[in-house]
């Protein structure tokens, strides 16, 4: 029976001091903490079943934890959860092991040997905070505030906001995350630009309408490069199973025969990186066969607007009709169209469709005073013109009849929608693919209807005034705090007045951080999440130009497993003077780079409220707590407090850091979110507050754009034209001035971004590459989320090494057999994997899961490595130009490789019994109180 021991912070520090000698991770760090002066709790078994939520991935499914004398002994899904319905996938279940893993770090660690070795000294929190603050303050004093930088991402990292705002507090512009431009930002931002609201990402919980079981209207769903049954198995995966069982048709676009492709009505195995060609073939087919929703396209999109060939922007009515008086307010411009009623070019004011003075032609070319204007629809049509089904088959490797069958399923439905996944974010087409996916749903009128993916929820989505969209951070939070950035949908005068209300010095300081951020001039879409361009940061570290980042605070997992072309990062580690990490365990990155590591709580220990499930919000509970671990926001908060003590005043923006400094604040924040007066009240009466339910009639909202608002007009959308803008005018303005992010001060111009979907052949193309003839793409398996869970024995015994999925015909040519070890090489390096022969990939394609191997630095190994070079796809990936123009995304998918016979790396574990050193060893750890 496990003993329950309550330790105070003081007793722990005392224990830590006793334990203080250097030790190696791999064997547990906790064994030395046996003697304390804490009182033993009653040792009789006490079993509790408590509400919590799994944080094994970002969907955060509701769950129950069973706790015996402080030890979590069982996890199961919560049957009351509306989409996951009691499911809990193995990423969640395996926390039973990883929570008590010998790999946990329970105390702050200071490097005791050279970087690259696994030798650490346990130090007290006071010493750790002082060390970090001393390094940061002394480096900034010597080299300036731009010498500090932060990063986050990689799985099991919740510090997105913290990483974004920590540099702000220290007056540095530099922060990055291996996801961001390569994960979700492009889809998130493009939807804001085009639709003024939430996007089509299914993994990121933007798409939940298909799983709405109250109205239940989705007839057809396109999964464009998403595999919810793998990535978010218990929630979206369960939702997909229910949706298909209800008879919803599905089309899956994926080079790999994923479980969702297996179940699809039509599978389109697109050549990696050529999705834009496929999208354009859909546009062409829909235009050619007049399958679009004519009324919606005419009156709710900007496609009928005539475009000025010089500016590429829609012509405003006053430009061609100087005496025209617009009937709409200044925040709602009137444009110009070719009117089919009068057969002439006419002003096209915003109105309800039935009140419009014009019947606009979507596809038209007009010459006025010797100048030729095309409608945006005509421009799109001409862009799509070459993309016959046959041309798409040739370029994208998908049979024409399959494409046609897919488009017909999509267009024949009364209600359908596209839900997209991460793949396109990891290509040069990162902005163009979401542009195309949004544009298709818009010309089909699959917008704001029951059953569409493009729907917005909650009463807050029902406008009472002209909708606007805020930029700079989520919902424009930094614009609201610091007064930088225009609100799209406000008139120029309204924006000017708004921005004048902010203190100019703070505005100037924030603006300088914006324009000084690395890579911003070329890739202004990164402003949406205030992140730097990763390859430009690496270049700055390597060269010191335009400034040299020297002190690094990383807030999550294994950067070497997650960053593209990981070796190029490893090479610049010596250029970074001091590296701080934080995580519940040590990863390759910590072994190779970190000088100081703060121990974080696992999700079973950390109170949080995160993603909702449909109309319900749930609690992630503090089920237990061991060691001196802290919640994710706390180390940076404490370090900033110490910096402020040293300096007297922080050099950066105020409020700057947005993260709790103490566990009490973390807990109060959770209580507030669940509408409980206090954490104690929430704990005492959890069932009263969890879940927090929005009544379905308030939650599920549709047709918001048709609601008449305060100016007497239908609300429309939060874009400049108040319409859906599949011809994305904002991208043109952004490239030229940084608008709407850089406002009121314009940013330097770069080349225009394409306002519509365009085809880009991948820079490394299998077409004509004789040295590296295969194209590699990657994707998830259900066992892991990002860099997590490679130390979960029950996952690794089932999936010990990454499969290299390869077509049997290709394997035969290469003399490779099923489950044989192979070497996969790109122009950047080579790795090992096991060939998995399957008809589920095109003969020209190989597919592989990202990987890293924590067993490589296990104590039992004679040949220790940091475990990131052996099987890690990011040894192969491409982080140099060409980048996606808007977001600077580099190429994690759709680059070329060759595959040869290989060998098992000697320190990789394969056999189930080999994973025994990963089994839990910390169940007898005493439960402990909050450190801060």
């Amino acid at each position: 029976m496990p003993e329950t021991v309550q330790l105070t912070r003081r007793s722990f520090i005392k224990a830590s001091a006793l334990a203080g000698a250097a030790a190696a991770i791999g064997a547990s760090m906790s064994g030395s903490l046996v003697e304390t002066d804490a009182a033993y709790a009653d040792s009789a078994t006490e079993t509790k079943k408590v509400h919590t939520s799994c944080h094994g991935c970002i969907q955060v499914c509701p769950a129950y934890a069973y706790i015996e004398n402080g030890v979590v002994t069982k996890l199961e899904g919560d049957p009351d959860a509306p989409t996951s319905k009691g499911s809990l996938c193995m990423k969640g279940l395996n926390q039973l092991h990883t929570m008590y893993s010998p790999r946990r770090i329970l105390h702050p660690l200071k490097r005791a040997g050279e970087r690259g070795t696994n030798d650490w000294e346990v130090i007290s929190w006071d010493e750790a905070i002082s060390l970090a603050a001393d390094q940061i303050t002394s480096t900034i004093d010597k080299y300036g505030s731009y010498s500090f930088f932060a990063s986050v991402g990689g799985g099991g990292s919740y510090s997105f906001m913290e990483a974004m705002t920590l540099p702000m507090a220290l007056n540095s512009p530099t922060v990055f995350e291996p996801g961001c431009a390569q994960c979700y930002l492009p889809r998130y931002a493009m939807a804001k630009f085009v639709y003024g609201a939430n996007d089509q990402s299914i993994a990121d919980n933007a798409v939940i309408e298909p799983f709405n079981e109250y109205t239940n209207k989705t007839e057809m769903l396109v999964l464009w490069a998403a595999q919810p049954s793998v990535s978010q198995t218990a929630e979206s995966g369960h939702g997909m199973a229910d949706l298909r069982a209800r008879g919803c048709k599905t089309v899956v676009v994926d080079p790999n025969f994923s479980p969702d492709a297996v179940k699809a009505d039509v599978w389109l195995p697109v050549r990696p990186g050529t999705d834009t060609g496929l999208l354009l073939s859909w546009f062409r087919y829909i235009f050619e066969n007049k399958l679009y929703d004519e009324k919606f396209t005419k009156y709710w999109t900007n496609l009928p607007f005539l475009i000025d060939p010089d500016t590429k922007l829609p012509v405003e009515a006053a430009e061609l009709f100087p005496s025209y008086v617009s009937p709409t307010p200044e925040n709602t411009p009137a444009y110009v169209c070719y009117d089919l009623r009068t057969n002439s070019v006419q002003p096209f004011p915003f109105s309800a469709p039935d009140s419009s003075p014009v019947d606009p032609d979507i596809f038209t070319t007009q010459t006025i005073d010797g100048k030729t204007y095309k409608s945006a629809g005509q421009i799109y049509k001409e862009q799509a013109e070459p993309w016959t089904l046959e041309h798409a088959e040739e370029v994208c490797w998908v049979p024409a009849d399959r494409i046609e069958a897919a488009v017909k399923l999509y267009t024949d439905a009364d209600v359908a929608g596209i839900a997209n996944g991460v793949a396109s974010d990891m290509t040069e087409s990162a902005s163009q693919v979401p542009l195309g996916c949004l544009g298709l749903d818009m010309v089909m009128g699959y917008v704001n209807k029951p059953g569409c993916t493009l729907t917005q929820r909650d009463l807050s989505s029902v406008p009472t005034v002209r909708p606007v969209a805020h930029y700079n951070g989520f919902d424009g939070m930094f614009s609201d705090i610091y007064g930088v950035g225009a609100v799209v949908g406000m008139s120029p005068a309204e924006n000017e007045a708004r921005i004048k209300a902010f203190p100019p010095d703070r505005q100037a300081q924030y603006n300088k951080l914006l324009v000084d951020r690395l890579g911003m001039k070329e890739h202004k879409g990164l402003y949406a999440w205030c992140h730097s361009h990763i390859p430009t940061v690496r270049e700055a570290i390597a060269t010191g130009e335009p400034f040299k980042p020297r002190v690094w605070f990383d807030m999550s997992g294994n950067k070497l497993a997650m960053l593209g072309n990981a070796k190029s990062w490893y090479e610049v580690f010596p250029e970074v003077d001091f590296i701080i990490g934080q995580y519940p365990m040590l990863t390759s990155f910590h072994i190779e780079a970190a000088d100081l590591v703060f121990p974080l709580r696992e999700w079973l220990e950390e109170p949080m409220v995160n993603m909702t499930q449909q109309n319900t919000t749930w609690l992630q509970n503090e089920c237990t707590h061991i060691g001196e671990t802290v919640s994710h926001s706390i180390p940076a908060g404490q370090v900033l407090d110490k910096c402020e003590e040293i300096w007297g005043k922080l050099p950066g923006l105020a409020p700057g850091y947005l993260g709790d400094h103490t566990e009490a604040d973390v807990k109060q924040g959770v209580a507030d979110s669940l509408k409980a007066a206090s954490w104690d009240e929430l704990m005492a009466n959890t069932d009263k507050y969890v879940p927090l339910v929005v009544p379905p009639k308030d939650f599920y909202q549709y047709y918001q754009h048709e609601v008449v608002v305060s100016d007497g007009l239908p609300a429309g959308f939060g874009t400049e034209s108040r319409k859906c803008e599949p011809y994305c005018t904002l991208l043109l303005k952004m490239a030229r001035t940084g608008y709407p992010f850089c406002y009121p001060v314009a940013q330097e111009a770069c080349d225009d971004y394409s306002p519509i979907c365009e085809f880009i052949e991948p820079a490394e193309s299998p077409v004509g590459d004789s040295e590296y003839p295969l194209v590699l793409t990657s994707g998830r398996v259900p066992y892991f989320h990002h860099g997590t869970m490679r130390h979960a024995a029950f996952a690794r015994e089932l999936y010990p090494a990454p499969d290299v999925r390869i077509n049997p015909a290709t394997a035969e040519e290469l003399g490779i057999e099923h489950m044989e070890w192979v070497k996969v090489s790109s122009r950047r390096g080579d790795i090992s994997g096991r060939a998995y022969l399957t008809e589920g990939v095109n003969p020209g394609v190989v597919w592989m899961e990202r990987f890293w191997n924590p067993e490589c630095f296990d104590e039992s190994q004679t040949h220790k490595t940091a475990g990131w070079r052996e099987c890690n796809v990011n040894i192969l990936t491409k982080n140099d130009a060409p980048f996606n123009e808007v977001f600077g995304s580099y190429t994690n998918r759709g680059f070329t490789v060759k595959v040869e016979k290989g060998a098992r790396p000697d320190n990789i574990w394969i056999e189930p019994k080999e994973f025994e050193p990963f089994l839990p060893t910390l169940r007898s750890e005493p439960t402990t109180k909050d450190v801060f």
Partner: protein
Amino acid sequence: MRNCLVIDLDRCSGCDTCVVACKHENNVDLGNYWNQVVAVGPSGTFPDIEQYWIPAQCQQCENPQCVHVCPTGASYRDSKTGVVLIDKSKCIGCQYCMMACPYGVRTYNETSHVVEKCTLCPQLTANDELPACVHNCCTGARFYGDIDDPTSDAAKAIAAASADSIHHLPDPGDSKPVTVYILSPKVAAWKELV
């Protein structure tokens, strides 16, 4: 009474969660499995292919070969519940049952030197809870209950499926496996495996 699992392969996505849920619930050792998920396919030639997954565990046979060969009576079929079980106090670890089982779903515990298998989690079902693999299944594909009781989840799942979707694993030795797999021809053609 014939308690068993009914598994809807139209829903199953092969995620292996049932395997791990079982291992945590029943403390199954590394390398041992009371259930496993087998990918059937992809069959055909790219891109004209199909696939499904078979989660395989004790089929709760009415005429269990494992019971017939057990020299000590440790393997038995509970006449009341229809569940095939092992009385570990009688098991001598001879593993004859493992050789006799046509489905390879028994496993030898090297620590306690006895054979183990799916028990349908009586520790849970006795309290009206579901077996761990059913409770946590990520696609709602698993149903537990007495297929002779029309009100059970298992019987209802069978009743809702069309006749051409109902399958059992092949039964060359007349074991009479009770476990039912549902697979519609439109998802994939059932393959006679084992």
